[in-house]
């Protein structure tokens, strides 16, 4: 019995109450968010150290239903996910404050409370010692993120919220059915590295259970055709899209898939039952389909959402192949994609708050207006496409090698094709931002404050988005953005600093992945599962 895993879950959970209590005093409220984020990161960091030293801290809350305990147990795979979420929560909290205040959003108390609750549930998913505990946290994660999706309380947000709940709780039902079958078949729901054994006794039951579990986790992993909630959920504020809908929520699904393959069925059983090929095929189809659909999106955030669908399928493919190197690649792709996608979302939110840009078509010339942010965008987008020296390359390399080792040439080709699709998606954006829009030609007149003289092209909804000291584009005419007077003046620091931080994180992950605890934890996890 160890209190360490409990602390990781309780730290953000406790913050929920404090934030709600101080909901009308912004500074005290945000202080609690930061205190909780730092405490969570501290506890998770310590936990990761302990796990790397070989310990497996465990905490049991008692028997919950049937013979299954509600318990937490930190193993390398869980600690890796927890560490990732804790790190990014801290960064996102800074960004959230900048975004929400810069935007004068309503119900900020509810927002930060729900955010902390979501993190607590994510920690529970990461550290759950059995499938039932994971399920409980997975459902709580759904409930906790709902207020964030409907945050704006617009009709569109409410509709998205309904879709979100129906999909995710529907997934929950499939998951519950699957885990009940597993319980009846195997008599246990505990996670055992390499599988619990005994599941292959009744192949039909085991296959049905696997299908239900994949459907259950597949909803949050956004596997086609269960993915449509994710683009709809992009009505949420951008920090939510960044941390939750690119990291915590969706990766809880992917993580769950990983747990099922590596700790419930075990790679061998997955292969023996012939489950590897269908799951991998589903993942590959998702990868390519979402990659193509992303190209047709006009909203930046929706394009990023489809890119997320596609990237999550990489992870699902790695687990689906159930081959050592591929699983390692999948595990590595969890933090890699997290850092890259969160920085892309952060840039998208920054563009919205500071310049009112939401559409891909309006990105012309943004590189001059937001040089640092767009540079971060370009670098991480390159990483997503698979360029070396950025985070994405390393994980994709392992995935590629893994699929070749599994003699799955087709899947290797799909991986490469998906990379090309990413290039097709991001290159036009980067080209528009840096190489389009001539500042000299028909540039709008500037007043003394450096404000663009708008001549009536901007829609009302977005003009309210611009804050003092920043400019608004003139959609109809000029595509030119004036360069900021100083580099650091292009945006509020609370927005720009997190962007730079996560982008640097993505680069560090690409340059020296093996120096980071995340890499060691992934290595340990694979060693545990494959012996």
């Amino acid at each position, binding site marked *: 019995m160890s209190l360490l895993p409990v602390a990781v879950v309780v730290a953000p959970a406790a913050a929920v109450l404090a934030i709600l209590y101080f909901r009308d005093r912004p500074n005290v409220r945000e202080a609690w968010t930061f205190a909780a984020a730092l405490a969570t990161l501290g506890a998770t960091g310590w936990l990761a150290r302990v796990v790397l030293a070989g310990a497996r801290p465990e905490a049991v809350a008692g028997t919950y*239903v*049937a013979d299954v305990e509600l318990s937490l147990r930190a193993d390398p795979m869980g600690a890796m996910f927890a560490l990732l979420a804790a790190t990014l929560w801290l960064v996102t909290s800074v960004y959230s404050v900048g975004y929400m205040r810069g935007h004068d959003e309503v119900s900020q108390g509810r927002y930060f409370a729900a955010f902390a609750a979501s993190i607590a549930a994510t920690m529970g998913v990461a550290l759950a010692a059995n499938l039932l505990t994971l399920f409980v946290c997975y459902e709580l994660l759904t409930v906790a993120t709902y207020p964030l999706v409907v945050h704006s309380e617009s009709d569109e947000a*409410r509709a998205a919220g309904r879709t979100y709940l129906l999909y995710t*709780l529907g997934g929950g*039902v499939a998951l519950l059915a699957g885990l009940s079958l597993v319980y*009846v078949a195997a008599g246990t729901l505990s996670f055992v590295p390499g599988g619990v054994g005994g599941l292959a006794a009744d192949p039909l039951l085991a296959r049905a259970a696997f299908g239900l579990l994949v459907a259950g986790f597949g909803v949050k992993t956004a596997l086609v055709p269960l993915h449509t909630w994710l683009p709809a959920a992009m009505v949420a504020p951008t920090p939510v899209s960044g941390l939750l809908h690119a990291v915590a929520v969706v990766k809880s699904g992917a993580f769950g898939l990983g747990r099922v393959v590596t700790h419930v069925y075990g790679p061998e059983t997955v292969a023996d039952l012939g489950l590897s090929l269908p799951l991998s095929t589903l993942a590959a189809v998702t990868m390519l389909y979402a990659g193509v659909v992303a190209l047709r999106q006009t909203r930046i955030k929706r394009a990023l959402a489809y890119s997320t669908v596609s990237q999550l399928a990489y992870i699902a493919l790695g687990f689906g192949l159930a081959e050592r190197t591929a699983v390692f690649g999948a595990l590595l792709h969890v933090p890699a994609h997290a850092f890259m996608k969160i920085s892309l979302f952060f840039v998208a939110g920054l563009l919205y708050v500071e310049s009112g840009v939401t559409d891909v078509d309006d990105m012309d010339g943004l590189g001059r207006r937001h040089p640092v942010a767009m540079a971060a965008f370009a670098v991480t987008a390159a990483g997503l496409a698979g360029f070396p020296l950025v985070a994405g390359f390393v994980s994709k390399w392992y995935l590629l090698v893994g699929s070749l080792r599994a003699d799955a040439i087709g899947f290797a080709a799909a991986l490469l094709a998906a990379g090309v699709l990413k290039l097709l998606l991001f290159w036009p954006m980067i080209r528009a931002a840096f190489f389009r829009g001539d500042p000299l030609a028909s540039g709008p007149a500037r007043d003394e404050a450096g404000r663009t003289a708008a001549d009536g092209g901007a829609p009302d909804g977005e003009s309210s988005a611009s804050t003092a000291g920043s400019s608004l584009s003139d959609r109809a005419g000029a595509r030119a953005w004036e360069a900021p007077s100083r580099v650091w003046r292009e945006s509020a620091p609370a927005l720009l600093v997190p962007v730079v931080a996560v982008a640097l994180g993505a680069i560090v992950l690409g340059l020296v992945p093996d120096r980071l605890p995340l890499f060691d934890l992934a290595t340990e996890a694979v060693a545990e599962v494959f012996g």
Partner: protein
Amino acid sequence: MIDPALLVAVPLAGSALPAVASRLRPRTGWPLALGVLLVQSVLAVWVAAAALAGDPVRTQVAGIPAPFGIGLLVDALSAPFVVLIALAALAVLAYTRRGGPRSGAFYSLYLLLIGGLTGVCVTTDVFNLYVFLEISGLASYGMVAQADRGAAALAALKYLLVGTVGASLYLFGVGYAYVATGTLDMAALRAALPAASDPLALAALGLMVLGLSVKVALFPLHTWKPDAYEAAPPGVAALLAALASTVAAYALGRLLLAVFPGVAEAVVDAALLGLAAASIVAGSLLAYRSESVARLLAYSSLAQFGIVVVGFVVATPTAIAGSVVHLIGHAVMKAGSFLVVGLLARTHDVRTVAEYAGLARRSPYVSAGFAVLALGLIGIPPTVGFAGKFYIALGAIEAGSWTAAALVLASTLFGLVYLGRVLERMYVGEGDTHAGPTGAASPGMYAAVAVAVLATLALGGVGPLVEGWLAPVLDGLDAGLAMGVVP
């Protein structure tokens, strides 16, 4: 050891007090009812603790032995319900001090209801069960009519007509059982029925099940429920939602488990499963289409009792434990929801789903409480609503009843659809967020709601405990031993 007969006798005898005393001195009804219920609660907890710790507690009324005399029994199956009745009665009483009808006659009916319901839970005589069913029925018809509105009288009359038909059908079934076997004692019936001629035993089972299905309000025998719950005073609606159908469902479960095994199981199981399925689907649909929140909650009960019945039909130990957990949990959650409805009607004058828009801002704590109760009714872990459903689903899978399992699991989504509608309005609906409160609520009202919310969360882990309690009793029944005899 105290006599279980006291559990019934205390509230029944005490029920004379409030009506008489309030004639002599006004406003004495509530304290007298409180006194009687406190005594009854202490007895209930005491007897239940004894029954759960060791052997079942039993007695023969007037010392006449079975099968001629009337037996009373508190075993692991009935003990949770005895305690539930006593504690729910106390919690709702705290609410009615300010909120409910305050006449002396009302509190007499209140005690009569509690006595009758407890009687249904402890009796081992099928005819005695009918009498207690009617005592509690009469009390509840009178209590529904206590509301000021004229609609309440009509709703109460409808409840009376349908409820009496249900009870009479049950009595009809008892007649067949007696003709077939010559006994009315449950244990003796269990032994004699399988040997009796098929048509008689089948008619007895069919009529008794049908009658109790009316009392449980399974679709399409539910028509009394929404009218009665909507028209009744909020405290009464909460008490009836917590106890009336719950106790009827307990009686149904007890008969299926302890009296009728071996009689035409396939036919009756299929019929009951059909009724349960219809209840789950139609109840959810009707709830979704309701404008009044009270009606919505009443229709939701149809669906929830459908789930409970599935557990009793599947009848593996896991599923039975699930049904017991779900009955207790549903009682707590539904009573709490009705108390919230009453509270909000009082403080903000809102009754329909549309009027609930934006309530979360005006009344954040009560709304949060309602959200927890609603999530429990939907079946989100870690509430007690999840625990019950999961046990029933698990039991169905163990027994290979795939339809039953799918139905129970899918009911979560149905619940999401009809209750999510209310929650969405409350939290992100566009409503008149500036309207102030229109009436005051007492601390007792808030306390009653708080107890329900906390119980919804705290009972989430009660499953293994109930499973452990029930195991010896169910083993005894499986072994063909008389009810309440532990091997």
